[in-house]
């Protein structure tokens, strides 16, 4: 999440123009302009991604890695090119370390079942944190149920900062794997993933990092973090739904048995013996989401062209303004005030339940999320059934938070 890099500080006006890249932002909601503050849930898509999908289906649609004809050649070329773009985005060494999945959830399940499960014995431990999304809790609970292993949870403090000492203490002799989020989808906390990875490695524990809320908000450099596995979703990164990727260190990927069997993942099949493809194709059974991968490639191009360092700087500025505006509002309690924070502001209102807040905001054209954000244990930690969450993308500006604040004043007016 480094903000370092070439300083090409762009003006607020420049970022305002970014809005034109997203056709959906022209929509009016209940007669008001759309203020989209739900990008942590799913991002909107820039025109270049939409055009890429259209062009692929109109010009090059064919199955990959099969036929000899030109369309198949083009589709395969574009699909594999997208893999290279993911590699570049994450700072990985080799495109063969990138497995396309349907998203972060599938990537975590793949690692849980294919890498972690075979090495677990009764009494072994898997370490996660208290701020995980359900998709980084449930796959591990399933593996624990299957093997008799135990799930251990590293605590966080009232600001939403991970207790690193406890994390270190919980890395014990029985710990076999650690899985944690890079950026919390509820608190916005940016975890010290490099330190966490180092600590785990010193204990000979491999780690998976859930990057679903991280990759689109700042430069991720896997070489620097040293992660063994890293997962993210395309649809939160301005790409289509149903596509995501898993980075896995090459040597680990080679050891892993395939997760699902089928076409595409084999070299040869007979009733006596099947020879699997080499990674990553060994883990991509069936016809993949070809258009999705190519669309994701276009989204990565878009993001890299904006420059991730600039994106991080812009979003940090808007986030700071948003935190300021909300903290000045009557009856608003911010949930998640870690010093290292990105892209997400959660809050509770004294006067009204998040559900009522979201309904009133919606009538103002403001799309925010109300609920437990697939993180019920975290909600419990803060003693809340739900929060309202405003989350950022490249196209958000200070004005979006002015509109959000206007909506929240209306909440106070109605419920006051």
């Amino acid at each position: 999440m480094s903000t370092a890099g070439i300083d090409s500080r762009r003006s607020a006006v420049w970022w305002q123009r970014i809005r034109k890249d997203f056709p959906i932002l022209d929509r009016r909601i209940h007669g008001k302009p759309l203020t989209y503050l739900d990008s942590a849930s799913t991002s909107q898509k820039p025109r270049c991604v939409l055009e890429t999908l259209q062009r692929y289906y109109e010009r090059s649609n064919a199955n990959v890695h099969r036929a000899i004809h030109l369309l198949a050649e083009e589709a395969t070329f574009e699909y594999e090119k997208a893999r290279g773009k993911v590699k570049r985005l994450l700072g990985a060494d080799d495109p063969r370390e990138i497995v396309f999945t349907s998203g972060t959830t599938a990537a975590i399940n793949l690692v849980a079942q294919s890498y972690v499960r075979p090495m677990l014995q009764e009494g072994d431990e898997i370490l996660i944190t208290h701020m995980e999304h359900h998709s980084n809790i449930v796959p591990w609970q399933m593996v624990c149920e299957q093997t008799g292993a135990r799930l251990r949870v590293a605590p966080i403090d009232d600001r939403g900062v991970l207790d690193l000492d406890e994390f270190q203490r919980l890395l014990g002799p029985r710990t076999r794997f650690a899985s944690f989020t890079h950026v919390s989808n509820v608190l916005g906390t940016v975890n010290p993933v490099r330190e966490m990875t180092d600590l785990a490695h010193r204990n000979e524990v491999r780690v998976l990092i859930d990057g679903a809320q991280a990759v689109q908000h700042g430069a991720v450099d896997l070489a620097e973090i040293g992660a063994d596995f890293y997962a993210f979703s395309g649809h939160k990164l301005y790409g289509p739904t149903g596509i995501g990727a898993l980075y896995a260190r090459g040597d680990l990927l080679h050891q892993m048995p395939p997760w699902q069997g089928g076409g595409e993942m084999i070299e040869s099949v007979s009733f006596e013996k099947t020879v699997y493809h080499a990674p990553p194709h060994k883990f991509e059974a069936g016809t993949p989401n070809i258009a999705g991968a190519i669309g994701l490639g276009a989204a990565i191009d878009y993001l890299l062209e904006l420059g991730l360092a600039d994106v991080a700087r812009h979003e940090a500025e808007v986030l700071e303004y948003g935190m300021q505006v909300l903290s000045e509002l009557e009856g608003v309690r911010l949930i998640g005030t870690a010093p290292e924070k990105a892209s997400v502001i959660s809050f509770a209102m004294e006067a009204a339940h998040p559900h009522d807040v979201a309904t009133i905001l919606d009538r103002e054209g403001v799309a925010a999320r109300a609920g437990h954000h697939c993180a019920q244990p975290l909600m419990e930690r803060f003693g809340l059934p739900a929060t309202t969450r405003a989350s950022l993308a490249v196209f958000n500006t200070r004005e979006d938070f002015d509109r959000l604040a206007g909506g929240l004043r209306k909440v106070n007016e109605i419920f006051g």
Partner: protein
Amino acid sequence: MSDLRDLYQEVILDHNKHPRNFGALEQPTSSAEGYNPICGDHFRVSVELDGDTLRDVRFEGSGCAISTASASLMTDAIKGKTLREIKTLHSDFQKLVTAEPGAEHDPARLGKLVVMGGVCEYPMRVKCATLAWHTLKAAARAETKTVTTE
């Protein structure tokens, strides 16, 4: 804002702030829990039945203004009624909040519950309005399982 006031009418805001029949019955005939996993609304409705007649009803838990007010209004509306009358009322209420095309509901029979009518303009909130009613139904059937809106 006028349309928001149709949803958040004074009666609803009042029942949200000061829910009636809030708490647990000392000796319920039965009770049930209702849960909306999407937003975390969670109620327990306990009933005291005398044959077919509902002698008393209370609810506890937490939820949004719509689900809380709906639960509160419901308890007021059903106390002393027979299960058959309550069933008819539930069906009228369901029609009111979903505004099924061509559905007839009797405003006289609904009484105070008509204030919940604004919910039909907010399809995402219908589940909030009906949570207490589903829970009541489960309690009357003496179901012990938590009912969910999903």
